[in-house]
């Protein structure tokens, strides 16, 4: 062994700790895979209970992702492209749900949108809209928790994009909206897609805010994570099967993001 090779070998202690970390991350997944009763997997997943949760999870998470796009992209643009006062405060507010315990988010939503609450009461008395114990509530909870991922990703992309391209578009006669659609959006597309996928994955996995704010009603607010938690106590096989479904989704998102992120780095 040459001197150069020897000097590059990492310290043994660090390698040992790193190996333990890998084990810590991998063993639970292995546990999930070995615990699964592969023979009954399909039957477990296609039980009415699981199908309800799956269907509801898809609907809610897609709605939450769509809402996050509609509400989050304009805010990301304002944060990245304007110099309005109080931007830093708004940014902190937008990121807060990422660090806030989701159950606290759920309580906060309940206090704002509950039937007797600040916004909830007028919404119910004027429009008959109510959130607690409804699918709309589950969507709202997921949006609250997942949207920051979109805002953060899109704002970072807008900041790192050379805004002179937008000036070039304006110089060629394109108005603000046309510039945004034809130049800004395509140029941040890789990050926008990555942010959307992250947001969707987060919405799909949402548990704390949903159960606190929207409750746990099968077919209405009981999404997959809620169903997993409930089923774990009575029917472990179904819980494991549904967990595997969620794990598969996570892996697919991760793999597709990896490509996107690498793609985004290339000029």
């Amino acid at each position: 062994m040459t001197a150069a090779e020897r000097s590059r070998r990492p310290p043994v202690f660090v390698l040992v700790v790193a190996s333990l970390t890998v084990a810590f991350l991998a063993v639970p997944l292995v546990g999930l895979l070995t615990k699964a009763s592969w023979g009954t997997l399909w039957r477990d997943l296609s039980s009415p209970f699981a199908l309800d949760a799956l269907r509801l999870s898809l609907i809610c998470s897609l709605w939450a992702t769509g809402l996050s796009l509609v509400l989050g992209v304009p805010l990301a643009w304002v944060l990245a492209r304007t110099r309005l006062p109080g931007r830093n405060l708004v940014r902190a507010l937008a990121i807060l749900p990422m660090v806030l315990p989701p159950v606290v988010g759920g309580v906060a939503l309940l206090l704002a949108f509950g039937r007797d609450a600040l916004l909830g009461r007028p919404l119910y008395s004027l429009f008959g809209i109510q959130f607690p114990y409804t699918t709309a509530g589950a969507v709202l909870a997921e949006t609250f928790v997942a949207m920051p991922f979109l805002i953060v990703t899109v704002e970072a992309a807008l900041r790192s994009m050379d805004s002179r391209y937008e000036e070039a578009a304006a110089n060629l006669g394109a108005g603000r909206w046309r510039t945004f659609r034809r130049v800004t959006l395509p140029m941040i597309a890789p990050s926008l897609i990555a942010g959307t996928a992250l947001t969707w994955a987060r919405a799909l996995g949402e548990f704390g805010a949903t159960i606190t704010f929207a409750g746990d009603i099968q077919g209405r607010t009981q999404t997959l994570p809620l169903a997993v938690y409930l089923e774990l106590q009575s029917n472990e096989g179904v819980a494991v099967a549904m967990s595997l479904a969620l794990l598969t989704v996570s892996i697919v998102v991760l793999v597709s993001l990896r490509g996107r992120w690498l793609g985004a780095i290339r000029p």
Partner: protein
Amino acid sequence: MAGRHQAVSLDAEISVTVGEFELHLDLDVADGEVVAVLGPNGSGKTTLLRTLAGLQPLSGGRITLDGQVLDDPAAKVLVPPESRRCGMLFQDYLLFPHLTAVANVAFGLRSRGASKSEANDRALEWLGRMEVVHLAQSKSRHLSGGEAQRVALARVLATDPKLLLLDEPMAALDVGTRGSVRHRLRCHLAEFTGACVLVTHDPLDAAAIADRLVIVEAGRIAQQGTLKEITTHPRTTYIAGLMGLNLLTVSANGTTLTLPNGATLQAASPASGEMLVVIAPQSISLHLERPEGSPRNMWPTRVSEIHLMGDRVRVLVGDPVPVAAEITAVSLAELGLTEGSPVWASVKATQIDTYPAHGG
């Protein structure tokens, strides 16, 4: 447009403050005229173009193009960039990387209301005019610098601007391709009927392309005029340096010129008061011994720097008269000069061109 007298197309009185930097200058450009704005980095050239394009609002003054007020803070008028007819060729062209060359050119046409097929046809026509129609379907990030410049020029000219703004159009190119690109750009500009402002720090670009030069230093006009006026009577050391000339400030009393450090030179024609003196580096001779014969100005000095420029050499000498002399590489070898060598410098009185420091 082709009237008997050339109407002023662009009439700009610019006053803008960006952070610590201030830019104050007046600029008039007629239709069909190309004005080059030269200046060192940070002198405000790009800021000037940005105010004209509407990307940087004025703090004071007024910009009028073809009789339309574009920016007038006092009257609260500010036409947004997309509503101006001021096409800009950006320094690194800024072709949209996600679009093909033809889609880049069509972008401006579509933005100004052309239908999809009409925009596409005209974009192809403009690419043809720039002789890059074969690149129409290439993604713009795959184009070379020269190709990108032609596509960008097609993109900006296709929108039929009244004012064309060129920001350092050669800066992104290899030195080797600049000559041919410069020639091509001049040909295309000759066909352009609007007003044109070219920003550059390269006097070669200015000389090749522009009708008139405006030299900007530290946010103000240091001098303007034709290339000939500026090369014969530069007003600042930056301009003299740009043109490769020696510029000295002297006080004249008859034919005796006194430098600020007390050294004197003899001119051929008498003058008085504060004067500028320009001496071409080629007219300064260097000798190892005190020269015999006619030159009325000679002085011993030392070599401070030597710069090789192909087969010519610039030798900078120090006090009492700090100037650059230009000699051949052969003479340099014969004289055996190195930095620090003692040397005699001489210049004929008739080679000393004196003109007033103020006005003119």
